[in-house]
């Protein structure tokens, strides 16, 4: 019976120093996928390599294929890797895709990374219908988690909180000017994010004009002199400070003076320096908002806490989606049994009709049609109950019992064994009951 496997490691098992040695680059990926395909017993495989994890999701003939997958990951990875089978592997895939297993719970990139890994596996011919189906269900669960919970709401890094707060004050950033004072790394990052968020102009002020120009190039901004600070404060909507100055360079008095000249337009001041560059007293001025590192970190922590509170609801959605996936899988499994049962009964009826017609002698078309209709009606009425029950029970043990009772040959499994990722069966009926390889027991 085919099984779903997951072999790999993540930020939970190993530090970044190990993960960076194991990361698989985009260039290496096709080769690695091709190698996975050739492993004995591995029908389908997908390799998910991100900065936080290296994991192989595979559909294999048996659990023993996990050892080959582990060996393929290499000795270093094998030392730390975790192997998950069937329901555990399925749950892990759903949780990873829904960003519940991420370092920053609720981060948005993982869904794109899973989609990308799937696309690469398909391109390499390593991914078939079974893995595609389970990935599609995982992505749909992830979408529900994102839309129905607040797990992805609120920024959780300092720079993204700064951008989020700027949006809260100023709304749309298009047409806004950002003033970057100093060359701190975090301020540069925030300036870039603000620029990407729509800010039309980034002004870079530094004590040395050459440093300002170099930095301006890096953040696609315009270099300006620090001595023009009062005039720049009149112009800017967001100010990011990260200089090494020991005294505040943006004082409450200075901001108070420029405020009138700005006609009270809101001013968002972000202080990313230690010691602080902006007088915190300026926050008391009307339409002026001052956030320092502690303030931003406090908001980030609050957002993280909020996300954590949503985890339980997200986990419940994942469980619901896994149950729905299992039910759909069992329904699909019941369809071939029903089809063969009906086919067998109809064949018997047809044979009996032909025998009866030959015994009765010459009959006109209408009489022959009546006899055929009667035989069809008997088959339909006889199978109506079992059909309804099989559909209602969504296959499972009842489907197996029906197959056993009516002597229906499970030809599907033989056919499925021949179907690799490159020999895709056309329909579920054609694939047979064993074709949908993931052995979910349908927990409710």
């Amino acid at each position, binding site marked *: 019976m085919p099984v779903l496997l997951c072999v790999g490691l993540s930020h939970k098992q190993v530090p970044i120093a190990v993960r960076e040695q194991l990361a698989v680059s985009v260039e290496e990926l096709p080769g690695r996928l091709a190698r996975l395909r050739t492993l004995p017993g591995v029908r389908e495989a997908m390799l998910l390599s991100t900065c936080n994890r290296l994991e192989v999701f595979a559909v294999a003939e048996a659990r023993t294929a996990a050892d080959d997958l582990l060996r393929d990951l290499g000795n270093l990875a094998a030392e730390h890797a975790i192997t998950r089978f069937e329901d555990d592997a399925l749950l892990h895939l759903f949780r990873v895709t829904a960003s519940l297993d991420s370092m920053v719970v609720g981060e948005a990139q993982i869904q794109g990374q899973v989609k990308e890994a799937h696309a690469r596996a398909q391109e390499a011919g390593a991914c078939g219908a079974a893995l595609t189906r389970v990935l599609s269900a995982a992505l749909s669960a992830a979408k529900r988690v994102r*839309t*129905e919970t*607040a797990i992805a*709401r*609120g920024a959780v890094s300092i720079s993204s909180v700064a951008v989020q*707060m700027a*949006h*809260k*004050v*100023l*709304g*749309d950033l298009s047409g806004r000017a950002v003033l970057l004072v100093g060359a701190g790394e975090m301020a540069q990052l925030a300036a870039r994010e603000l620029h990407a968020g729509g800010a039309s102009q980034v002004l870079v002020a530094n004590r040395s004009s050459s440093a300002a120009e170099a930095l301006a190039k890096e953040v696609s901004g315009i270099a300006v002199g620090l001595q023009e600070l009062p005039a720049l404060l009149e112009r800017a909507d967001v100010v990011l400070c990260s200089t090494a100055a020991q005294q505040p360079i943006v004082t409450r008095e200075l901001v108070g003076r420029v405020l009138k000249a700005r*006609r*009270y*337009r*809101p001013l968002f001041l972000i202080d990313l320096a230690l010691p602080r560059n902006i007088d915190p007293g300026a*926050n008391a001025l*009307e*339409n002026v*908002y001052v*956030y320092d590192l502690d*303030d931003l970190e*406090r*908001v980030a922590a*609050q957002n993280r806490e*909020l996300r954590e509170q949503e985890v339980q609801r997200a986990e419940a959605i994942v469980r619901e989606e896994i149950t729905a996936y299992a039910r759909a899988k069992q329904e699909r499994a019941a369809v071939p049994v029903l089809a063969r049962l009906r086919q067998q009964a109809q064949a018997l009826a047809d044979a009996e009709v032909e025998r009866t017609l030959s015994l009765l002698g010459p009959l006109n078309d209408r009489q022959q049609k009546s006899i055929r209709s009667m035989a069809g009606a008997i088959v339909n009425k006889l199978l109506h109950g079992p059909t309804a029950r099989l559909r209602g029970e969504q296959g499972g043990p009842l489907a197996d019992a029906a197959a056993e009772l009516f002597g229906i040959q499970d030809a599907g499994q033989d056919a499925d064994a021949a179907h690799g990722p490159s020999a895709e069966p056309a329909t579920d009926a054609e694939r047979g009951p064993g074709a949908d390889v993931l052995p979910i027991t349908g927990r409710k």
Partner: protein
Amino acid sequence: MATILVHIALLAYAAAAAAYLTWLVRPREWLVHAGRALLLVGLVLHLGSFAAGLSLSQGEGLARVGFGSDAWKGGQLFSLLAAATVAGYLALDLRYRLPVAGAFVATFTVAVMVPAHLVHGGTRAIAPALTHSTALAVHVFAAAAGTAALALAFALSLLYLAGEKQLKSKHPGRLFARLPSLELIDRVGWHLSVWGFVFLSVAIATGSFVSQESSGSAFPIAPKEGFAILAWALLAGMIQARLVAGWRGRRLALLVVAGFLLLVGTYAGLLAAPQKVASAAAALFAPGRS
């Protein structure tokens, strides 16, 4: 028929208020869709009740617009105000997506519609000159539109003050994520205040005509008129401060709140003198009835 329609509309508004208020606590997108749809349904039924009143007017024009029920006559002004507020909000929501303001508007609408139930126009002694007065019709509609615009501006001002407080305190609460940007609230609130001021000016000007026609005095000394003039003066000052000195944000929000509360005083003046309600509402909606 009109009475049934307006009762169903009130139920729809109440359900919308429940949906929006629940959304504030549990942010599910479907609650916003439900609230919006319920407000729309309520508004359509509400306008339908006006249309039904018109169809029964038997040549009296606007005389019987409303609810076709004596119990409702005195509250027609409030009903009109509620409908104008909902219509204004839905138009705003279409442009800016402001579900958090919907929580206020739906609740406000219910709060306005309930007095519409309670106020009875028992006395409707109307000067014959007002029976088909255009000035009165313009006065009532301008007053309703102006109050609706200022009610929305008031709601946005409260949101502004709440958002600003959270940003200044650096402890954003649970509602913070639901609040739109301060800049958007300020801008939309400003536009609404200006429209409110314009309608209020028209209402006051036409009101003096109506008063002249009915009582012979263009500027009667009464709480209702006094509050209206004070609100108008405050809003005029606010507009001047914004245009000349560039005031915005918190100061402007506080002025809008004060202006709207003065306007509420005008309506409180109406409630305190039921015969005034009757003279305004019944004259518009039921002239000719004793």
